[in-house]
């Protein structure tokens, strides 16, 4: 596997039920000089605004924040979609939040974050779908693939709930099906640039 590590501009990760431990492991594996921004779209309760960033931050090597609208994305930081908002990625490397209707019963919706990120970063995006209990993210990953980005899904055999990864694989011929350890090894190639 040869990837040009200097090419990529953003990493986006989507997950739902069963993804929390995986995201935590990934975040703890990244170097504090990780060269690109990390976008996290994880399903969460609408009315619980606080606590999630804090929980994810416990073992993370890079700072995590819930961005405000129009915040500029910076390398080496993670951005978690805030409760009850969709997180869009604007062309100028900015966040744009939305309160539009839920998609796949979800707000934030992984499809919308992935689609807008794919349109903003084209073939310079790495997208990962993790464990989850609905189909959100499948359509988004397809758009990432169509724009030439790298598509990865967590190996359904390893997923606590495999609906999300299997739906993604049905819709798209993904580039890699990886265990958590393999995802970490893959991203470590970006770590040391």
């Amino acid at each position, binding site marked *: 596997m040869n990837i040009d590590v200097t090419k990529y501009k953003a990493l986006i990760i989507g997950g739902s039920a069963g993804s929390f431990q995986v995201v935590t492991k990934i975040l703890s594996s990244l170097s504090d000089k990780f060269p690109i921004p990390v976008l996290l779209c994880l399903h969460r309760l609408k009315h619980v605004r606080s606590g999630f960033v804090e929980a994810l931050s416990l073992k993370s090597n890079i700072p995590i924040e819930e961005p405000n*609208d*129009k915040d500029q994305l910076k390398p080496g930081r993670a951005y978690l979609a805030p409760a009850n908002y969709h997180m869009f990625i604007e062309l100028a490397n900015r966040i744009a939040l939305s309160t*539009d209707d839920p998609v796949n019963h979800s707000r934030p919706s992984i499809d919308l974050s992935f689609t807008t990120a794919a349109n903003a970063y084209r073939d310079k995006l790495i997208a990962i779908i993790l464990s989850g209990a609905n189909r959100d993210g499948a359509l988004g990953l397809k758009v990432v693939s169509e724009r030439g980005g790298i598509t990865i899904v967590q190996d359904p055999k390893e997923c606590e709930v495999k609906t999300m990864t299997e739906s993604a694989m049905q819709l798209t011929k993904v580039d890699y099906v990886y265990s958590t350890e393999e995802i970490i090894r893959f991203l470590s190639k970006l770590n040391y640039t």
Partner: protein
Amino acid sequence: MVELGIVDIREIVRIIKKSYDYDFSNFALTSFKYSLEKVMAVNGLINAENLFRKLSDAPDFFDSFLHDLFIPSTEMFRDPSLWRWLREEHFYNMPERHLDNYKIWIPQCISGAELYSLCILLKEIDLIDKVKIFASVYSNKSLEFIKSGRYPLKKLEVSKENYVRFQGSNTLETYYTLSNNEAIRDTSLIKSVEFIKDDINFSKAPQNLKLILFRNVMIYYNPTLQNLILDKMNKSLSAAGNLIIGIKETLKPSNALSTSFELINNNESIYKRKI
């Protein structure tokens, strides 16, 4: 859904500017694109040319376009803690003389979720007849929708949960009836609201306001338009009047107007106009 390209979107902006003198060029691109694509889906338009033609040739369409394009506030009583703050920290214990000439404005009403929530809150604390509420709409379609009281059932469940967290003095069911698979809200709640049919730049903004509820509207603007509209809000408020924006919206230090406002509640994004 049909996918619009940047060239299509520029053409749509140009047509609207030319035909109606509305300027959408400073709307945030990704959400504007998504909204346009949804409008096309709702209206069965299968390509960009269909939309160009509708916008150019059918003035009636523009009114419903404005209703369909804008994102309604999600559900009633979104962010219950904000509504609790209004009740407990703001209106309770407000001296009677402050209520004289107390004017509230909701600048962008699409579904009336914010408006009905506000009216329910004010009714429950017996202030509904003591304050003056202005509500601006962009289209007759929005106005008719709000005045009909109609509200989609799919938004009702979350609204009910929100109301419970708001800890209102009734249940939300008190304020609507069910009919033909939709809710009909109690329209007597909004009987003394003054509606203003306005354009998207709020040219008819009311003045000397004590409170503006402007949550999650500026997220659909780019920073240039955010500045312009904030200036309008600033001029519409009376000294020490409150501006409430969405919890993930901020007046960034880079914003020219950030010094005109004082942040008085960080969790709920409540600002006060400096005297």
